[in-house]
């Protein structure tokens, strides 16, 4: 019989404890952000999709060595370049990222020895069309230059 009442009272007390915890939270300020109106600042190391780094002239540092293409586990990078007359280095003419299969592992950025690739800070990627994620990074670089 003693156990009966002890159980009842310890049980009731544990319930009140729990209610006190939630009540204390009730008047506090919410910890969430009202997303479309406010958003968090991304960390500099955040891995968005990759983008090309422009040098002072706004051109890419890429010399079309294709290391990133080879390092990519999902084969989502395709690039092409030409060697203009009289120049030593190749110049990038096409850099397509197929973001649909990219897993943001960073292998490409790591493999680049010419400081040509970095992660962007873009996280708001949403679309109803697949084609939007086949990105032309050269075009993106041009847009950034403007």
């Amino acid at each position, binding site marked *: 019989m003693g156990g009966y009442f002890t159980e009842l009272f310890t049980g009731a007390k544990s*319930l009140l404890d729990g209610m006190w915890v939630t009540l204390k939270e009730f008047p506090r300020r919410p910890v969430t952000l009202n997303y479309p109106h406010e958003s968090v600042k991304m960390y500099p190391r955040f891995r968005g999709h990759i983008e090309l780094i422009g040098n002072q002239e706004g051109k890419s540092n890429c010399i079309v060595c294709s290391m990133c293409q080879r390092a990519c586990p999902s084969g989502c990078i395709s690039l092409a370049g030409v060697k203009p007359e009289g120049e030593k280095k190749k110049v990038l003419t096409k850099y397509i990222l197929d973001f649909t299969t990219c897993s943001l592992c960073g292998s490409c950025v790591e493999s680049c020895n010419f400081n040509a690739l970095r992660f962007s800070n873009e996280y708001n990627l949403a679309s109803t069309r697949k084609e939007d994620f086949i990105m032309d990074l050269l075009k993106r670089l041009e847009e950034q230059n403007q």
Partner: protein
Amino acid sequence: MTEPITLQQDETFVLNVGPQHPATHGVLRVKMTMDGEYIYNAETVLGYIHRMHEKMAENRTYPQYMPNMGRLDYLSAMSFNHGYALVVERACNIEVPERAEYIRVITVELNRIASHLVWLGAYVLDLGGFTPLMYCFDDREQILDLLEAVTGSRLTYCYFRFGGLYNDIDDDFITGTRAFITHFRKELKMYAKLVTGNVILMKRLKGHGPVDQNMCQRYGATGPVARGSGINYDVRRNEPYSVYPDFDFEVPVFTEGDSYARYLVRMEEMEQSLRIIEQALDKLPDGPINPKKKPKLIKPPPGDYFAAVETARGNFGIRMVSDGGKNAYRMKLRSPTYSNMHLFDEACRGMLIADALAFMGSLDLVIPEMDR
């Protein structure tokens, strides 16, 4: 307490729990033969998100396979990174600098806490309490922020490299982690009041979902499931890897073998992880995070290699068979929940459906890791 009852096979019906069911946390399916609300028999059906990670290993080079590790167990991706890095380092005989080892331990343990927090929230949600989930996610968010600042991703980390790490931690991370430890100690007390002590929860968990030691041995259950049944087994202790022997921590073991014991094991583990992180931050040496000497091309010598780590859910083992080439000849991933879940079929017989789902939650399932 449910009394054991004799179930009648001729008056049963089949209840299809899953693949879309709130309690299965993903796409697990359990075909339950029920006698009223009692389970007569259960058969788990897997494979709804099977992706054949093991075949992928045969088609990718060793560094290229690293991102796959984050996709196995999305909640403790860091531990899986660690396991894979360990086995390749073992095969290629790569030395890991001490600073890298310490950072590995810190990040893995932070990730373990984050994983346990998701489990806690989701488990109490299984039991019908919504609010702890939000508190857990609030705390977890802080861990994710810390890890994001270092690794660049929030969930599917690809942070470890063979012999080292992707990048170094900074002072912000250290101060942030210390602040988090202080904050989280308080939160743990709050959880103890809100959830652990709650009489409804205790009534639902104590004495339900019994798993004994023999069952663990027969099914190969590891992690909190084994530790909740009185088996003092933690890979970090039993088979020390990385710099874990440097730290003073306890392996929580409870002998009851019920859902509540498994619950307590995980709650206690979070505290122990905090201790490990604290010690690791104190001892953190300076130095490089990547080895000076590292083979340019990872080509392990032929033979087979094994490495095991303790993830948040138990013993994750990798068996790697190499033929000396750039790709693995065979990569076997031994995931902990695969074995842990297997005992559900046997253990849930005769249970009420409500208890069985509480039991399933206490196994802490992550379906992508089971299905691989």
